[in-house]
């Protein structure tokens, strides 16, 4: 592991140099918001962003992708996307979400489509400079990140402390001209940023240690909050679509005009959507809006944690809060309500 320091202008030169030879995706302004997009110039990179509209998930699990092409009664070919890319500016909570997805997609039948993209990515994470209006990463213990990235950037004023954590990261950092070893003062400032963010990314405050959430939910299956909130739920799945840890998908076949060759397509799905649990023969086992509404919260804090060593699968990015038109999606307000009613906390 190498920790260096790079002035902001030297960092911009590094980015320009990377753009010349690599496929670079970075956070940029989109209207008055921000999002990840292919980067054409270092000047477009906005590491001072609050939160992106979409999490970086789409670069590993695209909204729609061809899994394989087939011929009816004949062979099929898996379609893998092995294009190398650099992802610039991933916030710690999003990095932790990617770490969770890595673990989930490696389990059982390991998902080669996801993992191929993941293995071809170089991730440059960056500590948060400007907290978003809905973030609660401090509550979830996801305000800083210690692993998963190839490079971690921390803004310490006029320069970045740049840590290379993997061989890929070392390679990238080797291209940084004028990088100097980070002196103790710079490292201290990085510690200060971490200490600040551990408290400051907390627009909503969860009333318990997230580790207790499975216990809270274990006693809340029949709580009235599910019915109350779901009353004004459009079942639009916006909360699912912007979530960095939602990974449910649907798989459909489409044939070409010869009616014998075709492709199997995977698309994002969402547990809030009407029809999400429809199975053959048109049976639907989670029909009620309230049941689907409850399922998302249980999935984040009970079902998925059981698969990944107890980690809560909500990283506190707050995107669902901002994306929910009737404003019912905020996990903190729901969990806090349950905590209050159970008399714990």
């Amino acid at each position, binding site marked *: 592991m190498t920790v260096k320091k790079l002035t902001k202008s030297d960092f911009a030169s590094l980015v320009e140099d990377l753009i010349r030879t690599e496929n670079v995706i970075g956070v940029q302004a989109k209207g008055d918001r921000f999002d990840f997009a292919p980067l054409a110039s270092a000047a477009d990179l906005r590491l001072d962003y609050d939160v992106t509209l979409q999490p970086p998930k789409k670069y590993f699990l695209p909204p729609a992708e061809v899994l394989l092409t087939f011929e009816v009664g004949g062979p099929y070919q898996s379609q893998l996307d092995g294009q190398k890319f650099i992802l610039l500016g991933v916030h710690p909570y999003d990095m932790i979400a990617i770490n969770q997805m890595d673990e989930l997609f490696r389990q059982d039948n390991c998902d080669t489509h996801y993992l191929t993209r993941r293995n071809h990515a170089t991730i440059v994470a960056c500590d948060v400079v400007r907290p978003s209006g809905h973030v609660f990463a401090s509550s979830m213990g996801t305000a800083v990140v210690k692993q998963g990235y190839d490079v971690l950037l921390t803004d310490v004023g006029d320069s970045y402390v740049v840590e290379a954590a993997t061989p890929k990261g070392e390679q990238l950092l080797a291209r940084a001209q004028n990088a100097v070893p980070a002196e103790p003062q710079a490292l201290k400032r990085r510690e200060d940023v971490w200490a600040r963010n551990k408290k400051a990314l907390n627009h909503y405050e969860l009333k318990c240690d997230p580790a207790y959430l499975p216990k809270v939910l274990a006693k809340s299956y029949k709580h009235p909050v599910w019915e109350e909130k779901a009353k004004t739920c459009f079942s639009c*799945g916006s909360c699912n679509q912007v979530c960095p840890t939602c990974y449910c998908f649907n798989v459909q076949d489409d044939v070409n005009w010869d009616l014998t060759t075709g492709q199997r397509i995977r698309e994002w799905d969402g547990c809030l959507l009407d029809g999400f649990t429809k199975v053959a023969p048109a049976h639907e086992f989670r029909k009620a809006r309230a049941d689907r509404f409850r399922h998302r919260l249980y999935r984040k804090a009970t079902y998925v944690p059981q698969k990944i060593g107890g980690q809560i699968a909500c990283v506190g990015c707050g995107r669902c809060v901002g*994306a929910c038109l009737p404003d019912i999606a905020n996990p903190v307000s729901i969990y806090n309500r349950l905590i209050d009613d159970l008399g714990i906390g």
Partner: protein
Amino acid sequence: MAKPKIAIFDFACCEGCQLQIVNLEEEILSLLGVADVVEWREAMSEKSDEYDIAIIEGSITRMEDEERIKRIRGCAKVLIALGACAATGGVNKLKNNFEDFEEVKKCVYGKAAGKPHLRTGVTKAVGEVVQVDYCVPGCPIDAKEFTYIVRSLLLGKTPEIPEYPVCVECKANGNPCLWQYDQVCLGPIIRAGCGARCPSSGFRCFGCRGYVDKPNVEAARDVINRYGLSVDDLKTKMVLFGSRQEPTIYE
């Protein structure tokens, strides 16, 4: 196996949905490779009463049209409603909001209002007159969705039309919610499948694909209150494509 026969018919509409099929260009040749198109007024002069799949564009507004669509239904094994006018009544149902059709006619056609071919009654979606097997929603239709549905049917497969609202595709496209930019977007209650084309271009959803199976009226009420709007504010946005979506009462 003989190629299935397809016939395309139009009723009260602008023919824009058929135009989407014409615009498929080289894909039309692929379609003709697997099916015989035996009647299609907009693109050919032949006619036929023998077809397996009838594709119907437009809504039903005259008694003689009711007879005609019933005849077509009798000939077809599968009937597809093509586009908003056929699937939900679409823009044509605006008329049903008025009581005096003579006044409406004068307003629209002026001096020509008395002409015999303009003698029309209430607007009905095709499904209000005959049984519809599949709908291709939208104004106009999405050509990709249309070809997917046709291919599915040729394979004997049920095509999957989204039950969920436009927000799904809008968010997947990485758009911020247009409500946050003062637009009364109908996305949360309108059926997806268009790829959220309008909101992705900065325009609110006008609702051309019709409502989802279970639109949440409570939620809509809550949101208009939250945004300081009245029920009428929302209704004026819904009227264009969403007028009188309940079955039309026969006179």
